[in-house]
Every structure is written in C-alpha cells, then in structure tokens.
C-alpha cells in the first residue's frame, strides 16, 4: 500500500496535497484497493462551498458506492474532468492522475489538526484491517 509522505489524510481515506492555500484532493491507495474497479465518479460543481468533512462527490465501483468528503473548508475551484471520463484512473494512479478536486481552502492552519500525517494514516489503516 502506497502512502506518500508529503500528503495529509482523513479518516474517510481522502488524501490532501497542500500548496499554499490550494489543496488537491483524491482518495488513497488503500481506499481504491478496498473499492475495487471504479466505474463511475460524480463530483459537485465548481464554485461549490464546502465545509471540512462535507461530501463533495461519490465514487462507485462495480459492487459499491462511497461518498467522498472534503478534507478542508473552502471553495471547489476545479474538478478533474479527465477523471470523470476515465474513472478507472482511481485504481491505476490514485495519487496522480486520479486527483479529484482542487480546493481554495479557507482555514488550513486550524483544520490541518484534524488530518493525519502519512505515518499516522498507515497505522490507522493497519488497525482497520
């Protein structure tokens, strides 16, 4: 299972890459492995205001449906259209081409406390198994 060191993680298995106040979000390798073949992704419109922990989309595999939640409060700036057209990218490249949204975050400094670093997330996944 891949857990890149430079990312932050939620308990719902989203990852967040923080670059100044822009946060790129996707789901983790652990999550895609649990889901199996992803066949459909729905994401809210650009411009939507999200609170930390609020649902911003749905990821469907052959067998199941999972909601995805925003790791930070902010405004949804960009949706990865290429991913909507090729949902299987989630299984192939969860931390790269399968990024889901870019978020203009409003309070990274405070909200980051609610996320895990790579080490804590790895431990969290092991305990979940």
């Amino acid at each position, binding site marked *: 299972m891949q857990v890149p060191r430079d990312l932050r993680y939620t308990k719902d298995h989203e990852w967040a890459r923080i670059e100044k106040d822009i946060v790129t979000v996707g789901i983790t390798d652990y999550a895609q492995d649990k889901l*199996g*073949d992803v*066949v*459909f992704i*729905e994401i809210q419109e650009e411009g939507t205001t999200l609170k930390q922990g609020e649902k911003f989309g*749905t990821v*469907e*595999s*052959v*067998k199941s*449906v999972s909601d995805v939640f925003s790791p930070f409060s902010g405004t949804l700036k960009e949706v990865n259209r290429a991913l909507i057209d090729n949902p299987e990218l989630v*299984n192939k490249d969860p931390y790269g081409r399968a990024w889901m949204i870019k978020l203009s975050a409003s309070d990274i400094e405070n909200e980051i406390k609610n996320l895990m670093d790579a080490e804590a997330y790895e431990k969290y996944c092991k305990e979940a198994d």
Partner: protein
Amino acid sequence: MKHTPLYETHKRLNAKFMEFGGYEMPLQYTGIIEEHLNVRNRVGIFDVSHMGEIFIKGKEALAFCEWLTPNHVSRLTVNQAQYSFLLNDAGGVIDDIIIYRLAEDEFMFCVNASNVDKDYNWILMHKRGNVEIENRSEDIGMISVQGPLSSHTMEAIFGGINTLKRFTFKIDSFAGKQIIISRTGYTGEDGFECFIDNEAVVKLWDSIIEAGKPHAIKPIGLGARDTLRAEMGYPLYGMELNDTSTPLSTNLGWVIKLDKAAFIGKEALEIAVQKGITKKLVGIVMNGRSIPRHKNPVLLKDKVIGEVTTGTYSPSLSRGIAMAYVDNNIEINEVGVDIRGILHTGNVIQLPFLKK
C-alpha cells in the same frame, strides 16, 4: 465462518474475501471487470463449493421429486439435469435448484448455499413414501469452469467431455474419487460444473488451472459471478426470487408446469394465474453513467411502478443495468430510476441484456 477446501488457495492468490451463505468466499482476485471479461472471452474457474447438495434416493424418489418441484422431473433421463424450484404452499420460492438424475431412482438437488438448511428441512418435512434424503453439502466441493474455452480446458483432463450436451452430465473419476461433470453454469457462456468429494477439490482445481494455462484461464470471484449472471438476466434467490412471491412474474415462468399432477404450490399458482399476473421482470439499461442499485425505485413519469431487484455495472455493455419488477399492464420504453434521490433515465429491454 465456514471455509471451502480452497480457502488457502484463494489466500495465496491474494483474493479479497466476502461472506456469502455462511462461507468466507473470494469476492475477487485481480478485479471484477477483468475477471468478468476473461469468462466472456476465454475461460474462468470458480470455487462454488459453498453450494449445497441434497440427495434423494429410493423406489419412490421420482414421485417424491415430482411432488416437491414444479418442473417435469419424469422427463429427465438419467444423466440429465433440470432447472427448477422448491416452492412453498403459497407458490413462493424457497429456493431455485438444479435437479440431477443420477439413476432411475436417485436424484441430486444442487441448492443455494444460504438455503441449504432451509431446503433440507423443507424436504424432510414433506417426505413421502419410500425415499432416503441425505444432505451432503458439507462433504462435496464444487468447481465451475465457464467461458468459450472451457471445453478446451476440460477436454485436456476429461477426454470426450466435449460431446456432453447442455444440461447433461457424466460421472467419471478423478484422483480416486467419483466426479460429476455437468454442462451447466450461471454465466451465459458454455461451461461445466464439477461435484467432487472435498478431499479431491484442491487437486481438481490445480489440474484445471494447469489445463487452462494455454487458454489464459483465471480464477473468478463471486463479484464477477454476479455481474455475469446479471447480464444474462438470470434471477438470483434473495434478489429476484423470494419466499413471498411466485416465480410467475419472472422470466422463469416456463419452469412451472401447471399441466402436471399435484405439486407443492400448484393450487396457489393456479389461482395467481386466474387472477392475472400484475408484475413482470424487465431489464433496464441506463442512458448515462449512473449505476442503479438494489431497491432503487423505478418511475414512469412521476409514478413509482416498481423497484430494482438487481442493479450493477455491466462490464460487457460498460453501462449501469438493472432488473426490476414493474406493473405488467403498461407499455413502457423509458423509465426513471431514483438513485439516491436523483432521477436517472434508462431504457426498458427484454431480458437478457446480452443477446448471445
């Protein structure tokens, strides 16, 4: 949870597991879509040892089976198999089964894993005449080999198996054990199902994997088993079939032979036919990318006309598909499916989804 003799094999193959019928079974190995397409295009091997086997034997076995099930058992010759049901007095489906005529006076019922105890008790409770009833589900393993290259694979181990006709079987031996090989399956492809003593299951699996190597055989989990049967519109107990509704609204009405002598559930079915069948099972192919799921409401304009029984993604059609019971008396082409509060449209089709 119970395990089949192949549990360690599945673990070595890195299977993801799920609970099914009290067993810990492989959901998938490399991925449902890949496995599904391997069965459609080449060949796949399934561990279905969780399925049950109930034997009925004795002078009056035929008469008893005729009484227990709605299809014409007497039309079965020895070495022939038949799809049928166990029905309750109200005509509801206790289980869907395959009946194998092993000898003039001996039959094997292959039943769903989750229903073994229910079926066995039902059969015991209705025992009539000179028959012996034995539940050997725990001792017998079952391997299914499905796909257009399944006969090439099986022929390499069991020479002459190619001549078996659909829904017939032969009894052979393998690793010193008796094996029943039938040309049946649940995928819509050519295929074989093998019943053998638990002790020989792993050896049989390994031999089939070896024989299938030139044909790119793959182990297939229950995930793809479900998408394969869904594309063919095959009803599944617990989804399309249940104890409280008759099979008359399904595409399996042909199984019910109301012209035969008394059988359990016959009166209720006759009354149901007289009253008129109000629901029918249809297929829905979604227009967009959304995937319908079990229990999603089906709407015509603003009116709910039914509910999704099976909803999944079809790897062959790259679309969401659903089976649903809808009102029988309306001609419908396009319907809406309410998927988690949002209405998506789909086209109603005659089953199966995949015409072969």
